[in-house]
Protein backbone atom coordinates (compact mmCIF):
# COMPACT_ATOMS: atom_id res chain seq x y z
CA UNK A 1 0.00 0.00 0.00
CA UNK A 2 1.04 3.50 -0.60
CA UNK A 3 1.91 4.42 2.93
CA UNK A 4 3.54 1.07 3.64
CA UNK A 5 5.55 0.64 0.52
CA UNK A 6 6.58 4.07 -0.49
CA UNK A 7 10.31 4.23 0.03
CA UNK A 8 10.60 7.89 -0.89
CA UNK A 9 10.75 11.02 1.11
CA UNK A 10 7.28 12.46 0.65
CA UNK A 11 8.55 16.00 0.93
CA UNK A 12 9.06 16.42 -2.81
CA UNK A 13 7.10 19.63 -2.95
CA UNK A 14 9.95 21.40 -1.23
CA UNK A 15 11.81 21.92 -4.50
CA UNK A 16 9.48 24.72 -5.52
CA UNK A 17 11.28 28.04 -5.71
CA UNK A 18 10.58 29.60 -2.38
CA UNK A 19 9.90 33.06 -3.76
CA UNK A 20 7.09 31.94 -6.01
CA UNK A 21 3.60 32.30 -4.63
CA UNK A 22 2.00 28.95 -3.95
CA UNK A 23 -0.98 28.27 -6.12
CA UNK A 24 -2.78 25.35 -4.59
CA UNK A 25 -5.04 23.47 -6.93
CA UNK A 26 -7.19 20.56 -6.13
CA UNK A 27 -6.25 18.95 -9.42
CA UNK A 28 -9.71 19.59 -10.77
CA UNK A 29 -11.52 18.28 -7.78
CA UNK A 30 -9.86 14.90 -7.49
CA UNK A 31 -10.16 13.28 -4.10
CA UNK A 32 -6.49 12.42 -3.78
CA UNK A 33 -3.99 10.64 -6.00
CA UNK A 34 -5.87 7.34 -5.98
CA UNK A 35 -8.91 9.14 -7.30
CA UNK A 36 -6.81 10.73 -10.02
CA UNK A 37 -5.29 7.37 -10.91
CA UNK A 38 -8.75 5.87 -11.10
CA UNK A 39 -9.88 8.61 -13.46
CA UNK A 40 -6.83 8.03 -15.66
CA UNK A 41 -7.38 4.27 -15.58
CA UNK A 42 -10.93 4.77 -16.81
CA UNK A 43 -9.49 6.51 -19.83
CA UNK A 44 -7.85 3.22 -20.75
CA UNK A 45 -11.37 1.89 -21.12
CA UNK A 46 -10.42 -1.59 -20.07
CA UNK A 47 -11.32 -3.73 -17.12
CA UNK A 48 -9.40 -2.52 -14.10
CA UNK A 49 -8.19 -6.07 -13.56
CA UNK A 50 -6.48 -6.04 -16.93
CA UNK A 51 -5.16 -2.53 -16.77
CA UNK A 52 -1.55 -1.81 -17.64
CA UNK A 53 -0.04 -0.38 -14.52
CA UNK A 54 2.96 0.67 -16.58
CA UNK A 55 0.80 2.72 -18.93
CA UNK A 56 -1.11 4.12 -16.00
CA UNK A 57 2.11 5.18 -14.30
CA UNK A 58 3.20 6.94 -17.49
CA UNK A 59 -0.12 8.76 -17.73
CA UNK A 60 0.03 9.86 -14.12
CA UNK A 61 3.61 11.06 -14.39
CA UNK A 62 2.77 12.96 -17.57
CA UNK A 63 -0.18 14.59 -15.82
CA UNK A 64 1.93 15.64 -12.88
CA UNK A 65 4.65 16.93 -15.18
CA UNK A 66 2.12 19.01 -17.07
CA UNK A 67 0.83 20.45 -13.83
CA UNK A 68 4.34 21.36 -12.75
CA UNK A 69 5.04 23.08 -16.04
CA UNK A 70 1.98 25.20 -15.42
CA UNK A 71 3.52 25.99 -12.05
CA UNK A 72 0.47 24.53 -10.37
CA UNK A 73 1.35 23.35 -6.96
CA UNK A 74 0.20 19.83 -6.39
CA UNK A 75 -0.62 18.64 -2.92
CA UNK A 76 2.18 16.53 -1.48
CA UNK A 77 0.09 13.38 -1.71
CA UNK A 78 0.08 13.61 -5.50
CA UNK A 79 3.84 14.05 -5.61
CA UNK A 80 4.38 11.15 -3.25
CA UNK A 81 2.33 9.01 -5.57
CA UNK A 82 4.29 10.30 -8.57
CA UNK A 83 7.55 9.35 -6.95
CA UNK A 84 6.23 5.93 -5.99
CA UNK A 85 4.95 5.32 -9.52
CA UNK A 86 8.29 6.40 -11.01
CA UNK A 87 9.98 3.89 -8.72
CA UNK A 88 7.47 1.19 -9.62
CA UNK A 89 7.97 1.91 -13.32
CA UNK A 90 11.73 1.55 -13.03
CA UNK A 91 11.30 -1.74 -11.16
CA UNK A 92 8.85 -3.02 -13.74
CA UNK A 93 11.17 -2.16 -16.60
CA UNK A 94 14.27 -3.69 -15.07
CA UNK A 95 14.63 -7.43 -14.84
CA UNK A 96 13.93 -8.55 -11.26
CA UNK A 97 17.07 -9.45 -9.42
CA UNK A 98 16.47 -12.71 -7.63
CA UNK A 99 17.46 -11.74 -4.09
CA UNK A 100 15.63 -8.42 -3.94
CA UNK A 101 14.09 -7.70 -0.57
CA UNK A 102 10.49 -6.69 -0.07
CA UNK A 103 7.62 -7.13 -2.47
CA UNK A 104 8.32 -7.72 -6.11
CA UNK A 105 7.42 -5.10 -8.69
CA UNK A 106 4.62 -7.38 -9.86
CA UNK A 107 3.21 -7.60 -6.36
CA UNK A 108 3.31 -3.84 -6.07
CA UNK A 109 1.52 -3.39 -9.36
CA UNK A 110 -1.09 -5.96 -8.39
CA UNK A 111 -1.62 -4.23 -5.07
CA UNK A 112 -2.16 -0.91 -6.80
CA UNK A 113 -4.63 -2.44 -9.23
CA UNK A 114 -6.43 -4.02 -6.26
CA UNK A 115 -6.71 -0.71 -4.53
CA UNK A 116 -8.07 0.95 -7.63
CA UNK A 117 -10.66 -1.77 -8.09
CA UNK A 118 -11.63 -1.57 -4.44
CA UNK A 119 -12.04 2.20 -4.51
CA UNK A 120 -14.13 1.92 -7.63
CA UNK A 121 -16.25 -0.79 -6.05
CA UNK A 122 -16.99 1.36 -3.01
CA UNK A 123 -17.78 4.29 -5.30
CA UNK A 124 -20.28 2.12 -7.11
CA UNK A 125 -22.06 0.89 -4.02
CA UNK A 126 -22.10 4.41 -2.59
CA UNK A 127 -23.88 5.55 -5.71
CA UNK A 128 -26.34 2.69 -5.56
CA UNK A 129 -26.97 3.35 -1.90
CA UNK A 130 -27.78 6.97 -2.59
CA UNK A 131 -30.04 6.00 -5.45
CA UNK A 132 -32.29 4.23 -3.01
CA UNK A 133 -35.41 6.11 -2.03
CA UNK A 134 -34.57 7.99 1.14
CA UNK A 135 -36.81 8.57 4.10
CA UNK A 136 -38.33 12.04 4.35
CA UNK A 137 -37.03 12.81 0.89
CA UNK A 138 -38.66 10.21 -1.33
CA UNK A 139 -40.72 8.12 0.99
CA UNK A 140 -42.54 9.22 4.08
CA UNK A 141 -43.73 7.91 7.36
CA UNK A 142 -47.14 8.83 8.72
CA UNK A 143 -47.21 12.61 8.88
CA UNK A 144 -49.54 12.74 11.84
CA UNK A 145 -48.95 9.69 13.98
CA UNK A 146 -51.61 9.04 16.58
CA UNK A 147 -50.25 8.86 20.08
CA UNK A 148 -50.73 5.93 22.35
CA UNK A 149 -52.77 7.09 25.31
CA UNK A 150 -51.53 5.95 28.65
CA UNK A 151 -54.08 4.77 31.15
CA UNK A 152 -52.63 5.09 34.58
CA UNK A 153 -53.55 2.65 37.27
CA UNK A 154 -52.60 3.81 40.71
CA UNK A 155 -50.56 1.43 42.77
CA UNK A 156 -50.81 2.56 46.33
CA UNK A 157 -47.84 2.43 48.58
CA UNK A 158 -47.45 2.86 52.29
CA UNK A 159 -44.92 1.55 54.74
CA UNK A 160 -45.50 -0.38 57.91
CA UNK A 161 -44.01 2.58 59.75
CA UNK A 162 -46.63 4.89 58.20
CA UNK A 163 -49.30 2.50 59.35
CA UNK A 164 -48.06 2.06 62.89
CA UNK A 165 -47.29 5.69 63.52
CA UNK A 166 -50.70 6.66 62.15
CA UNK A 167 -52.31 4.19 64.52
CA UNK A 168 -50.31 5.21 67.55
CA UNK A 169 -50.84 8.91 66.91
CA UNK A 170 -54.60 8.54 66.63
CA UNK A 171 -55.00 6.35 69.66
CA UNK A 172 -52.82 8.62 71.71
CA UNK A 173 -54.70 11.72 70.65
CA UNK A 174 -58.07 10.20 71.47
CA UNK A 175 -57.08 8.72 74.81
CA UNK A 176 -55.38 11.88 76.01
CA UNK A 177 -58.39 13.91 74.98
CA UNK A 178 -60.30 12.31 77.87
CA UNK A 179 -57.62 13.11 80.46
CA UNK A 180 -56.98 16.68 79.51
CA UNK A 181 -54.15 18.45 81.24
CA UNK A 182 -55.18 22.06 81.06
CA UNK A 183 -52.52 24.15 79.56
CA UNK A 184 -50.93 26.16 82.30
CA UNK A 185 -51.48 29.82 81.74
CA UNK A 186 -48.57 31.70 83.13
CA UNK A 187 -47.96 35.43 83.18
CA UNK A 188 -44.26 35.69 82.80
CA UNK A 189 -42.04 38.14 84.65
CA UNK A 190 -41.19 40.01 81.49
CA UNK A 191 -44.85 40.24 80.48
CA UNK A 192 -45.64 41.62 83.93
CA UNK A 193 -42.86 44.16 83.80
CA UNK A 194 -43.81 45.37 80.32
CA UNK A 195 -47.40 45.88 81.46
CA UNK A 196 -46.36 47.66 84.64
CA UNK A 197 -44.05 50.03 82.87
CA UNK A 198 -46.80 50.90 80.46
CA UNK A 199 -49.26 51.54 83.30
CA UNK A 200 -46.87 53.47 85.57
CA UNK A 201 -46.10 55.81 82.71
CA UNK A 202 -49.71 56.96 82.84
CA UNK A 203 -50.05 57.27 86.65
CA UNK A 204 -48.95 60.42 88.47
CA UNK A 205 -49.73 59.42 92.05
CA UNK A 206 -49.69 56.42 94.32
CA UNK A 207 -51.91 53.72 93.00
CA UNK A 208 -53.00 50.38 94.25
CA UNK A 209 -51.28 47.56 92.48
CA UNK A 210 -54.50 45.59 92.17
CA UNK A 211 -56.08 48.53 90.38
CA UNK A 212 -53.25 48.56 87.89
CA UNK A 213 -53.72 44.95 87.30
CA UNK A 214 -57.47 44.93 87.18
CA UNK A 215 -57.62 44.45 83.48
CA UNK A 216 -55.43 41.35 83.82
CA UNK A 217 -57.41 39.84 86.61
CA UNK A 218 -60.60 39.12 84.72
CA UNK A 219 -59.86 35.44 84.68
CA UNK A 220 -59.76 34.28 88.28
CA UNK A 221 -57.52 31.40 87.29
CA UNK A 222 -54.85 33.87 86.31
CA UNK A 223 -54.89 35.82 89.56
CA UNK A 224 -52.07 34.06 91.40
CA UNK A 225 -49.68 34.20 88.49
CA UNK A 226 -50.47 37.83 87.73
CA UNK A 227 -49.97 38.89 91.34
CA UNK A 228 -46.79 36.94 91.78
CA UNK A 229 -45.20 38.05 88.56
CA UNK A 230 -46.25 41.66 89.04
CA UNK A 231 -44.91 41.79 92.56
CA UNK A 232 -41.61 40.35 91.47
CA UNK A 233 -41.44 42.79 88.58
CA UNK A 234 -42.15 45.76 90.89
CA UNK A 235 -39.44 44.69 93.31
CA UNK A 236 -37.05 44.64 90.42
CA UNK A 237 -38.13 48.08 89.18
CA UNK A 238 -37.80 49.53 92.69
CA UNK A 239 -34.31 48.12 93.03
CA UNK A 240 -33.42 49.81 89.76
CA UNK A 241 -34.87 53.08 91.04
CA UNK A 242 -37.59 53.23 88.44
CA UNK A 243 -40.53 52.93 90.84
CA UNK A 244 -41.54 53.28 94.46
CA UNK A 245 -43.90 51.14 96.47
CA UNK A 246 -45.34 50.84 99.95
CA UNK A 247 -47.59 48.66 101.98
CA UNK A 248 -48.97 49.56 105.42
CA UNK A 249 -49.07 46.09 106.82
CA UNK A 250 -49.01 42.50 105.77
CA UNK A 251 -51.76 41.65 103.28
CA UNK A 252 -52.70 45.32 103.02
CA UNK A 253 -53.02 46.73 99.53
CA UNK A 254 -49.72 47.55 97.85
CA UNK A 255 -49.29 51.08 96.50
CA UNK A 256 -46.81 52.08 93.93
CA UNK A 257 -45.88 55.01 91.74
CA UNK A 258 -43.34 56.04 89.23
CA UNK A 259 -40.04 57.16 90.80
CA UNK A 260 -39.90 60.97 90.83
CA UNK A 261 -36.83 63.18 90.62
CA UNK A 262 -34.76 63.30 93.87
CA UNK A 263 -36.32 66.59 95.18
CA UNK A 264 -39.82 65.43 94.73
CA UNK A 265 -39.00 62.25 96.47
CA UNK A 266 -37.82 64.17 99.56
CA UNK A 267 -40.94 66.34 99.72
CA UNK A 268 -42.98 63.25 99.63
CA UNK A 269 -41.10 61.62 102.44
CA UNK A 270 -44.10 62.13 104.72
CA UNK A 271 -45.91 59.69 102.54
CA UNK A 272 -45.68 56.01 102.68
CA UNK A 273 -42.22 54.86 103.57
CA UNK A 274 -40.12 52.97 101.17
CA UNK A 275 -39.58 49.46 101.99
CA UNK A 276 -36.12 48.25 101.75
CA UNK A 277 -35.68 45.78 99.03
Amino acid at each position, binding site marked *: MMTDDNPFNPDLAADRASDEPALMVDVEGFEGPLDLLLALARQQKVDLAKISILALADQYLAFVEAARKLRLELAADYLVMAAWLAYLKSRLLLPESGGAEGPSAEDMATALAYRLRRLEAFRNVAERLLERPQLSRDI*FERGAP*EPIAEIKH*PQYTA*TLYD*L*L*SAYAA*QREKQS*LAHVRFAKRNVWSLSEARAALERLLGQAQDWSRLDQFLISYLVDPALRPTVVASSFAAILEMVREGAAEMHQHEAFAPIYLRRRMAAAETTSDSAGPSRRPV
Partner: protein
Amino acid sequence: MTSVAKRRLAIAGDEMEPMSETRPEELRLLEALLFAAGEPLDEKTLAARLPAGVDVRATLERLKAEYAPRGVNLVRVAGKWGFRTAGDLSWLLTKDSVVPRKLSRAAIETLAIVAYHQPVTRAEIEEIRGISTAKGTLDVLLETGWVRLRGRRKAPGRPVTYGTTEAFLSHFGLDSLDDLPGLDELKGSGLLDGRLPSGFTVPMPSDDPALREDEDPLEPGDLDLGLAPPPERIED
Protein backbone atom coordinates in the same frame (compact mmCIF):
# COMPACT_ATOMS: atom_id res chain seq x y z
CA MET B 1 -48.15 1.41 -13.92
CA THR B 2 -45.79 -1.06 -12.33
CA SER B 3 -46.51 -4.74 -12.26
CA VAL B 4 -46.93 -4.47 -8.56
CA ALA B 5 -49.48 -1.73 -8.97
CA LYS B 6 -51.37 -3.86 -11.43
CA ARG B 7 -51.91 -6.44 -8.75
CA ARG B 8 -54.73 -4.22 -7.75
CA LEU B 9 -57.51 -4.26 -5.25
CA ALA B 10 -61.13 -4.57 -6.04
CA ILE B 11 -64.01 -3.91 -3.75
CA ALA B 12 -66.41 -6.66 -2.87
CA GLY B 13 -69.11 -4.40 -1.50
CA ASP B 14 -72.54 -4.13 -3.03
CA GLU B 15 -72.40 -0.41 -3.81
CA MET B 16 -68.87 -0.72 -5.11
CA GLU B 17 -67.55 -1.04 -8.60
CA PRO B 18 -67.19 -4.53 -10.01
CA MET B 19 -63.95 -6.11 -8.86
CA SER B 20 -62.54 -6.46 -12.32
CA GLU B 21 -62.02 -2.72 -12.60
CA THR B 22 -58.47 -1.48 -12.26
CA ARG B 23 -57.90 0.59 -9.15
CA PRO B 24 -57.24 4.07 -10.46
CA GLU B 25 -53.81 5.51 -9.84
CA GLU B 26 -55.30 8.64 -8.23
CA LEU B 27 -56.40 6.51 -5.30
CA ARG B 28 -52.74 5.67 -4.70
CA LEU B 29 -51.78 9.31 -4.98
CA LEU B 30 -54.49 10.41 -2.59
CA GLU B 31 -53.71 7.82 0.03
CA ALA B 32 -50.01 8.67 -0.11
CA LEU B 33 -50.69 12.40 0.19
CA LEU B 34 -53.10 12.00 3.07
CA PHE B 35 -50.84 9.51 4.83
CA ALA B 36 -47.76 11.72 4.66
CA ALA B 37 -49.56 14.94 5.54
CA GLY B 38 -48.95 16.30 9.01
CA GLU B 39 -52.52 17.53 9.27
CA PRO B 40 -55.85 17.01 7.52
CA LEU B 41 -55.95 18.48 4.01
CA ASP B 42 -58.81 20.27 2.32
CA GLU B 43 -59.96 19.39 -1.15
CA LYS B 44 -58.47 22.50 -2.67
CA THR B 45 -55.00 21.61 -1.38
CA LEU B 46 -55.37 18.03 -2.56
CA ALA B 47 -56.52 19.15 -6.00
CA ALA B 48 -53.44 21.36 -6.32
CA ARG B 49 -51.17 18.39 -5.61
CA LEU B 50 -52.92 15.91 -7.89
CA PRO B 51 -52.67 15.74 -11.66
CA ALA B 52 -55.15 17.98 -13.45
CA GLY B 53 -58.49 16.43 -14.23
CA VAL B 54 -58.76 14.24 -11.16
CA ASP B 55 -62.20 14.40 -9.58
CA VAL B 56 -60.97 14.95 -6.05
CA ARG B 57 -64.29 14.66 -4.31
CA ALA B 58 -65.23 11.43 -6.06
CA THR B 59 -61.81 9.91 -5.44
CA LEU B 60 -61.99 10.87 -1.77
CA GLU B 61 -65.40 9.29 -1.44
CA ARG B 62 -64.18 6.10 -3.05
CA LEU B 63 -61.10 6.00 -0.84
CA LYS B 64 -63.31 6.61 2.18
CA ALA B 65 -65.49 3.66 1.23
CA GLU B 66 -62.44 1.46 0.66
CA TYR B 67 -61.04 2.24 4.09
CA ALA B 68 -64.37 2.16 5.92
CA PRO B 69 -64.07 -1.52 6.95
CA ARG B 70 -60.38 -1.20 7.75
CA GLY B 71 -58.50 -0.48 10.95
CA VAL B 72 -57.82 2.98 9.59
CA ASN B 73 -60.59 5.16 8.19
CA LEU B 74 -60.58 8.18 5.97
CA VAL B 75 -62.58 10.84 7.76
CA ARG B 76 -63.61 14.39 7.07
CA VAL B 77 -63.09 16.72 9.97
CA ALA B 78 -63.96 20.40 9.72
CA GLY B 79 -63.99 20.20 5.94
CA LYS B 80 -60.59 18.53 5.76
CA TRP B 81 -59.63 14.94 5.08
CA GLY B 82 -57.31 12.69 7.03
CA PHE B 83 -56.70 9.12 8.11
CA ARG B 84 -57.76 8.18 11.61
CA THR B 85 -57.74 4.96 13.56
CA ALA B 86 -61.16 3.31 13.38
CA GLY B 87 -63.27 4.48 16.29
CA ASP B 88 -63.94 0.97 17.57
CA LEU B 89 -60.19 0.32 17.88
CA SER B 90 -59.35 3.24 20.12
CA TRP B 91 -58.72 0.76 22.91
CA LEU B 92 -55.80 -0.50 20.87
CA LEU B 93 -54.10 2.85 21.15
CA THR B 94 -54.05 2.84 24.88
CA LYS B 95 -51.42 1.52 27.15
CA ASP B 96 -51.98 0.51 30.70
CA SER B 97 -49.39 1.64 33.12
CA VAL B 98 -49.01 1.47 36.82
CA VAL B 99 -48.23 4.65 38.69
CA PRO B 100 -47.21 4.47 42.29
CA ARG B 101 -49.37 6.66 44.49
CA LYS B 102 -48.88 7.44 48.11
CA LEU B 103 -51.85 6.75 50.31
CA SER B 104 -53.36 9.88 51.84
CA ARG B 105 -52.97 10.58 55.54
CA ALA B 106 -56.68 10.00 56.14
CA ALA B 107 -56.58 6.71 54.27
CA ILE B 108 -53.60 5.36 56.14
CA GLU B 109 -55.12 6.38 59.46
CA THR B 110 -58.32 4.62 58.57
CA LEU B 111 -56.40 1.59 57.36
CA ALA B 112 -54.55 1.44 60.67
CA ILE B 113 -57.82 1.46 62.60
CA VAL B 114 -59.25 -1.26 60.37
CA ALA B 115 -56.12 -3.35 60.84
CA TYR B 116 -56.12 -3.15 64.65
CA HIS B 117 -59.84 -3.10 65.30
CA GLN B 118 -61.23 -5.42 62.67
CA PRO B 119 -63.96 -6.40 62.22
CA VAL B 120 -64.91 -2.78 62.50
CA THR B 121 -67.77 -0.65 61.24
CA ARG B 122 -67.49 2.79 59.81
CA ALA B 123 -69.14 4.28 62.88
CA GLU B 124 -66.58 2.57 65.08
CA ILE B 125 -63.75 3.86 62.95
CA GLU B 126 -65.11 7.36 63.29
CA GLU B 127 -65.44 6.99 67.01
CA ILE B 128 -61.82 5.91 67.39
CA ARG B 129 -60.54 8.54 65.00
CA GLY B 130 -62.71 11.23 66.54
CA ILE B 131 -63.44 12.48 63.06
CA SER B 132 -65.94 11.53 60.41
CA THR B 133 -64.57 9.40 57.62
CA ALA B 134 -65.27 10.49 54.08
CA LYS B 135 -66.83 7.81 51.96
CA GLY B 136 -64.02 8.19 49.45
CA THR B 137 -61.44 7.17 52.03
CA LEU B 138 -62.93 3.72 52.50
CA ASP B 139 -63.37 3.44 48.73
CA VAL B 140 -59.67 4.07 48.23
CA LEU B 141 -58.85 1.42 50.78
CA LEU B 142 -61.13 -1.05 49.02
CA GLU B 143 -59.42 -0.09 45.74
CA THR B 144 -56.01 -0.86 47.19
CA GLY B 145 -57.21 -4.37 47.81
CA TRP B 146 -55.94 -4.19 51.38
CA VAL B 147 -59.37 -3.77 52.95
CA ARG B 148 -62.47 -5.81 52.27
CA LEU B 149 -66.06 -5.90 53.30
CA ARG B 150 -66.44 -8.75 55.78
CA GLY B 151 -70.09 -8.91 56.70
CA ARG B 152 -72.73 -6.95 58.53
CA ARG B 153 -72.80 -6.32 62.24
CA LYS B 154 -75.78 -7.75 64.09
CA ALA B 155 -76.79 -4.36 65.36
CA PRO B 156 -79.31 -1.65 64.55
CA GLY B 157 -78.75 -0.47 60.99
CA ARG B 158 -76.76 -3.67 60.29
CA PRO B 159 -73.62 -1.71 59.40
CA VAL B 160 -71.00 -3.31 57.15
CA THR B 161 -67.88 -4.59 58.89
CA TYR B 162 -64.44 -4.04 57.41
CA GLY B 163 -61.32 -6.15 57.68
CA THR B 164 -57.94 -6.53 56.04
CA THR B 165 -56.95 -8.93 53.28
CA GLU B 166 -54.03 -11.17 52.48
CA ALA B 167 -52.80 -8.47 50.13
CA PHE B 168 -52.59 -6.19 53.15
CA LEU B 169 -50.34 -8.64 54.98
CA SER B 170 -48.27 -9.12 51.87
CA HIS B 171 -47.81 -5.40 51.16
CA PHE B 172 -46.72 -4.62 54.70
CA GLY B 173 -44.54 -7.68 54.97
CA LEU B 174 -46.56 -9.27 57.76
CA ASP B 175 -46.79 -12.99 58.13
CA SER B 176 -50.08 -12.69 59.98
CA LEU B 177 -52.00 -10.06 61.91
CA ASP B 178 -50.28 -11.32 65.07
CA ASP B 179 -47.18 -9.62 63.73
CA LEU B 180 -48.77 -6.21 64.24
CA PRO B 181 -46.95 -4.77 67.23
CA GLY B 182 -48.92 -4.68 70.47
CA LEU B 183 -49.03 -2.05 73.20
CA ASP B 184 -45.65 -2.82 74.70
CA GLU B 185 -43.93 -2.91 71.35
CA LEU B 186 -45.53 0.36 70.28
CA LYS B 187 -44.36 1.94 73.53
CA GLY B 188 -40.95 0.39 73.23
CA SER B 189 -40.47 1.78 69.77
CA GLY B 190 -41.46 5.24 70.97
CA LEU B 191 -44.51 5.38 68.74
CA LEU B 192 -46.76 5.51 71.78
CA ASP B 193 -46.12 7.95 74.57
CA GLY B 194 -45.56 6.44 78.02
CA ARG B 195 -48.02 8.97 79.48
CA LEU B 196 -51.16 7.02 78.66
CA PRO B 197 -54.17 6.59 80.90
CA SER B 198 -54.43 3.32 82.69
CA GLY B 199 -56.76 1.00 80.95
CA PHE B 200 -55.37 1.99 77.53
CA THR B 201 -55.23 -1.14 75.45
CA VAL B 202 -54.31 -2.12 71.94
CA PRO B 203 -56.64 -4.81 70.63
CA MET B 204 -55.44 -8.17 69.36
CA PRO B 205 -57.03 -8.14 65.92
CA SER B 206 -57.98 -11.13 63.84
CA ASP B 207 -58.61 -11.34 60.13
CA ASP B 208 -60.09 -14.82 60.43
CA PRO B 209 -62.36 -15.11 57.40
CA ALA B 210 -64.93 -16.90 59.53
CA LEU B 211 -67.56 -14.41 60.61
CA ARG B 212 -67.80 -13.60 64.27
CA GLU B 213 -70.87 -14.22 66.30
CA ASP B 214 -71.95 -10.62 65.98
CA GLU B 215 -71.48 -10.63 62.19
CA ASP B 216 -73.95 -11.64 59.52
CA PRO B 217 -72.88 -12.51 56.00
CA LEU B 218 -72.91 -9.81 53.37
CA GLU B 219 -76.02 -9.51 51.31
CA PRO B 220 -76.15 -9.90 47.54
CA GLY B 221 -75.05 -6.62 46.02
CA ASP B 222 -72.79 -5.61 48.89
CA LEU B 223 -69.74 -6.84 47.02
CA ASP B 224 -70.64 -5.09 43.81
CA LEU B 225 -70.15 -1.86 45.64
CA GLY B 226 -66.86 -3.08 46.88
CA LEU B 227 -65.59 -4.17 43.50
CA ALA B 228 -66.65 -1.08 41.67
CA PRO B 229 -65.58 1.82 43.79
CA PRO B 230 -65.94 5.22 42.22
CA PRO B 231 -62.68 6.20 40.55
CA GLU B 232 -62.44 9.51 42.31
CA ARG B 233 -61.16 9.52 45.81
CA ILE B 234 -61.87 12.27 48.27
CA GLU B 235 -59.45 13.02 50.99
CA ASP B 236 -60.84 14.37 54.17
